[in-house]
């Protein structure tokens, strides 16, 4: 960075006044006998956006709060942050080259849609069982491993579609068995303190699956060839600045945005799956029953839906969604038995950010986390550090959301 001090002062200003706003505002609202439930969050946003310039009038007028009071200051904070960064590091590719930035954004959205699919599985489980599966990443890992073994080791040359379906079936079955053997006991009162039990037992499952796979397949990274061999196409052909150039390796849009073809395939797989999932949840009887159970267990049980069966289905389906995410990404990254750890962590971030149990929240949260990760990794000046910190970006989001608004973007009130 050329002028790092500008950036760090801006950061310090945002965090410092955000904290002041977050701590003081609820007290002022309480003193004036107003509703304090949103005052902390809005106070933080307003403080971070304008410091004392915006906080003093805010405290003086103490307006009635609604969502605009969160969105507008947040956008301002983001603007200030970006401006400070651009000022501090004008030669950074993210600042100086718009095509670099748009490529990062496009890659972020592509990865985000896959993350979103995976988190969708987790949020589906949560909305029906009220459980966060700490083994979600292991389903993702197993999905990838299954594709490797089915498509590369056992049946070389098999159409990858079958490998993906195989991965879905395997992860579905693991989820099904685990739910029946371990989680069903929660509803029958066989375990004490079901809340803590669910946390620990899924944690145990993660530990078990990770080492089981390690014992079975070893620690050598696995590589899967790309699923689809895209032909060389330029559209419109012969143009100087074509809208789309594709070849086996990369796609290039508008001659400036470059995305690797494996990521495009993975994103397409996940979007198709998202479509199937939506069709299932909104058009089929079983899907509607699932949604009914997530909204009101008792009422659903009265109408003849068997909630136990829905639990099993949801858990297995959630696991399969993670499995398919892994299956589609195994051609992008090399695969080891502990890839699931990071994937789990990322899914937690996403569902907390989106609001636990919210399906649209999970997808939008996925996009946001995808963006933050790629932009963070692509724009932070020291590249080695930037990559080393990739797992932390999401965690910082998680910690901030849990502290400021544990219900996330679209969460129901706790």
């Amino acid at each position: 960075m050329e002028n790092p001090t500008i950036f760090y002062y801006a950061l310090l200003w945002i965090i410092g006044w955000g904290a002041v706003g977050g701590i003081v505002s609820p007290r002022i609202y309480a003193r004036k006998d107003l509703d304090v439930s949103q005052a902390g969050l809005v106070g933080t946003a307003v403080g971070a956006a304008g410091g004392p310039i915006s906080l003093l009038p805010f405290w003086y007028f103490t307006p009635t709060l609604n969502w605009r009071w969160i969105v507008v200051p947040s956008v301002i904070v983001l603007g200030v942050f970006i401006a400070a960064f651009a000022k501090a590091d004008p030669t950074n590719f993210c600042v100086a080259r718009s095509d670099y930035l748009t490529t990062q954004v496009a890659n972020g959205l592509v990865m985000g849609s896959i993350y979103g699919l995976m988190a969708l599985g987790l949020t589906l489980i949560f909305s029906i069982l009220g459980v966060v599966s700490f083994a979600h990443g292991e389903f993702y890992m197993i999905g990838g491993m299954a594709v490797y073994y089915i498509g590369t080791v056992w049946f070389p040359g098999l159409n990858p579609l079958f490998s993906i379906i195989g991965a879905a079936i395997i992860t579905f079955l693991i989820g099904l068995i685990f739910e029946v053997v371990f989680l069903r006991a929660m509803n029958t009162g066989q375990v004490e303190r079901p809340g803590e039990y669910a946390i620990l037992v899924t944690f145990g499952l993660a530990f078990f699956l990770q080492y089981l796979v390690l014992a079975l397949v070893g620690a050598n990274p696995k590589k899967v060839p790309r699923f689809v061999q895209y032909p060389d196409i330029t559209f419109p052909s012969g143009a100087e600045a074509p809208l789309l150039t594709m070849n086996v390796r990369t796609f290039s849009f508008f001659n400036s945005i470059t995305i690797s073809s494996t990521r495009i395939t993975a994103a397409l797989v996940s979007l198709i799956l998202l479509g199937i999932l939506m069709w299932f949840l909104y058009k089929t009887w079983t899907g509607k029953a699932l949604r009914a159970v997530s909204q009101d267990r008792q009422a659903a049980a009265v109408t003849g839906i068997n909630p136990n069966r829905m639990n099993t289905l949801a858990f297995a389906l959630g696991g399969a969604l993670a499995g398919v995410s892994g299956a589609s990404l195994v051609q992008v990254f090399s695969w080891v038995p502990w890839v699931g750890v990071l994937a789990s962590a990322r899914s937690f971030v996403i569902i907390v950010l989106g609001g636990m149990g919210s399906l649209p929240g999970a997808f939008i949260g996925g996009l946001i986390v995808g963006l933050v990760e790629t932009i963070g990794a692509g724009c932070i000046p020291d590249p080695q550090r930037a990559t080393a910190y990739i797992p932390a970006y999401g965690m910082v989001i998680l910690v901030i959301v849990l502290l400021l608004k544990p219900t996330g973007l679209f969460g129901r009130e706790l």
Partner: protein
Amino acid sequence: MSKRNWLVWGFTLSGIVLLVGFPFLTPNNYIMHVSIIAFFFAILASSWSLLAGYAGQFSFGHMAFMAIGAYSTGLYSKFIRLGTAPTGICTPEIKIGDHWLFFINAYGDNCLDIAKKTMPVGTLIYRLPPWHGIILAAIMGGVFGVLVGGLVLRLRRTYLALFTIGFSEIVRVAINAEIAITDGPNGLQLQPLFPNGMFGFSAVDKIPPYYAMMLLFVVSMLFMYWLTNSRFGLFIRSIREDEEAAAALGVHIVRYKVLVFTITSIIAAVAGAVYAHYVQVITPNILLIAQMSLVIAMAVIGGLESLLAAAIGAIAIEFMLELLRELHIGPLVVDMTTWRLVFFGLLLMLTLRFWNNGLLYPIIQRLTRRGVAEETVAKRLAGQEGDV
């Protein structure tokens, strides 16, 4: 003294005698090493059981506090030196009596190396003794314990679990990434626990660290045992059962929750610091989630709601892990390095599902608690009849 007290003290004393005498029974370096690691895990598992089993705060950040302790003392011994002459270029540089304390810079050329060329002949430069770093570790553990404990007050169950995983991962990634300071994944070198040896043992002998770790284990167990039998133990358990009801009965929830976080993280941090000096090189991998899972497995399989059960569980599992490293079936040697962990993962799940109280706790309970309860009631009732 009642029969129960005799029993408890008898067990405690014979346990301590066994621990003290153990090195004389088997003066074997490998077994000493395994014992030290077993004590280390026993401290972690029992302090986690205080946090999760007694206070109901299911935190996954325990290993992060341990690592904070380990890296506190590691960085202290990496960056701080005492010398008999000033360097003139290290900043800050503090004069203490006729010595100078230097802080070595993390970035750029090492100021001490440069200064050495110009310092007067005969200048001595010392590392500070490890126990300084261990005290620093306790302080850092306390500071982070208060911080995290204060931040998570509002979060319950799953949210607490997620937050602490997030915290732990941030610590791990930061250690991994800040290579100039922490030496990153290559690991940070530390001086041995007793750099000049002890009681005629050299710095590499296992006996002094054995007693050091054992002492830490016994002291922390006695301290936690005393805590759980005081009002503190009563209050944290009432918080675990029902926060709101406890508050309605006058329990200061905030104070005790922060306190239990602080105490357990100090214990974890000190254990981490001693462990770091024992193994002499620490990497960010010590706070991988898998390590945390192992501590959880130990506490759960032993018995989450008893310090002793968790500690014994940890010691037993650590020894079993070593025994199961290789399996000898006739002439066949099967490498079990990974499979033993698979087995413990499965055992963890099965214990949770079918033996709520762990595998060891019921045994311990049968030996001590049961009899006591009946005894006191009987005594009370008998005493009453006597009064009539």
